């Protein structure tokens, strides 16, 4: 019998499968489809200090093997997340959840994380310093090592749970930013967030997205994600949550071989609402096919020799 268990900063996960923030809401809607307690955990919808509607529509554009989104952090704000969303989640999810937090200033990040820190349902923070859809917002932090370090420092000061910093791939050297976060006490990093992309409508001759550019996700970006996870694994000692185009159990194994301790599944949830359940079902059989007994053993395996 193979083992799919992994340990993420002191909390054991039954498996490394984590639905990515923004593709799984606050979980309870997926609970109507399958038992979400089968997941390793999930990262809830990016939460900000205040309620946000996000960007104008259209917010979605299709691409070859992927999609663009420019949702722009629509969320009810941290107060309502605590008063409405977490209680609803408690009714269908008995594991620790990952709190995904975004902001527009160091203070925002600290404020929102501090508010959420007392919630016993929360096991980890995932601080998104890389959302490409917010003008003058999150992006700046994620593409600059100094800002990334400052956010990390501020959040660590007000939290007692493990903090993962979610990094942008739209940078010249992601390892420099990962190292800056590690130096300020980040417990881990998640990567990659979406690539900044664009599509143009040939009929209207205008960008498809009202916001013009959006975050590119899906299988198309997997090779870039694998490369960055591989690079960051060499650069830091803290655990990596790998993501980017993961759709199958094979993809999960490939991402872990590159250096991921856990793996997030994003766009795939939007095409197949049962994607994570299906991956978890396939994982043991796939491990046997590739002669893997304990998933923990393959983390960073592609770096050997």
């Amino acid at each position: 019998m193979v083992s799919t268990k992994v340990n993420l900063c002191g909390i054991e996960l039954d498996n490394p499968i984590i639905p990515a923030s923004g593709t799984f809401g606050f979980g309870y809607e997926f609970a109507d489809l399958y038992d979400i307690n089968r997941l390793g955990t999930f990262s809830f919808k990016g939460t900000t200090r205040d309620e946000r509607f996000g960007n104008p529509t259209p917010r979605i554009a299709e691409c070859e093997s992927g999609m663009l989104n420019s949702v722009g952090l629509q969320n009810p704000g941290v107060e309502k997340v605590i008063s409405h969303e977490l209680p609803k989640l408690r009714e269908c999810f008995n594991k620790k959840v990952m709190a995904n937090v975004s902001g527009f200033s160091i203070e925002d990040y600290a404020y929102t994380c501090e508010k959420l820190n007392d919630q016993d349902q929360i096991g980890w923070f995932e601080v998104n310093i890389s959302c490409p859809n917010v003008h003058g917002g999150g992006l700046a932090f994620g593409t600059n090592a100094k800002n990334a370090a400052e956010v990390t420092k501020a959040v660590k000061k007000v939290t007692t749970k493990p903090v993962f910093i979610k990094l942008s791939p739209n940078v010249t050297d992601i390892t420099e930013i990962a190292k800056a976060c590690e130096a300020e006490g980040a417990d881990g990093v998640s990567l990659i967030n979406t690539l900044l992309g664009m599509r143009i409508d040939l009929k209207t001759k205008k960008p498809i997205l009202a916001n013009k550019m959006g975050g590119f996700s899906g299988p198309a970006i997997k090779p870039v994600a694998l490369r960055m996870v591989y690079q960051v694994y060499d650069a830091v000692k803290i655990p990596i949550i790998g993501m980017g185009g993961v759709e199958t159990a094979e993809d999960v194994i490939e991402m872990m071989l590159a250096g991921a301790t856990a793996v997030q599944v994003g766009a795939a949830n939007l095409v197949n609402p049962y994607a994570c359940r299906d991956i978890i079902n396939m994982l043991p059989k796939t491990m046997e096919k590739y002669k893997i007994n304990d998933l923990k053993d393959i983390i960073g395996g592609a770096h050997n020799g």
Partner: protein
Amino acid sequence: MTQGIYKILYNFALTDTVYSMVLEGNTSALIAPGQFVNIKLEGKFLRRPISVCDFNDKTITIIYKVVGEGTAQMSKMKAGETLDVLVGLGNGFNPEKAGEKPLLIGGGVGIPPLYNLCKELLKMGKKPTVILGFNTKSEIFYDKAFKELGVDVIVTTVDGSQGVKGFVTDAFPEDYDYFFTCGPMPMFKAIEKVAKTSGQYSFEERMGCGFGACMGCSCKTKYGNKRICKDGPVLYREEIIW
């Protein structure tokens, strides 16, 4: 919502660009007229949301317009082939709200969801009037299907090549006590100007998932943000912010 593999029983053209497809499979998730399905196509990343025209306990009829590669691909599929479909998406129309004489207003490919609604209203003993708007005669479809239900059907064409010349609003009857509509935004704006009663509008938006997960198709209403795919596509006139 249910996910399943559905078998194509029929797939044929109603006009040069509008096709009708009948799918066989589990329809238990369909609970109201005006809901939609979301179809996975080989080689396309996102599913294609298509409104349900009619359904029974075994089959679903959808009517779609060829607008891009995806729908062109669908139009080439043959009976016997199968599709991965999410069924029972969206809130659908609420016929309970209708009075005795509801008005159904459809524009182009917005017409199909009104068909099953019309059948429901008749079952409830109401007397619907149907206005079907097209650009020109060659684009007309389903006018006979509605007539066969035994309701008054008014066809309008912008160029006057058949029926009333002009827009659906040029054919509004005096006597109606509620309305249901689906069609393009300019038609909605025109209806909003002339309509004298309450009503329900079925909206379109580019969707990511189609079941409420991605927030791709959100809109603001007087009662807060709603997701067209899950809280809609049907919104009440009273809550819409134009």
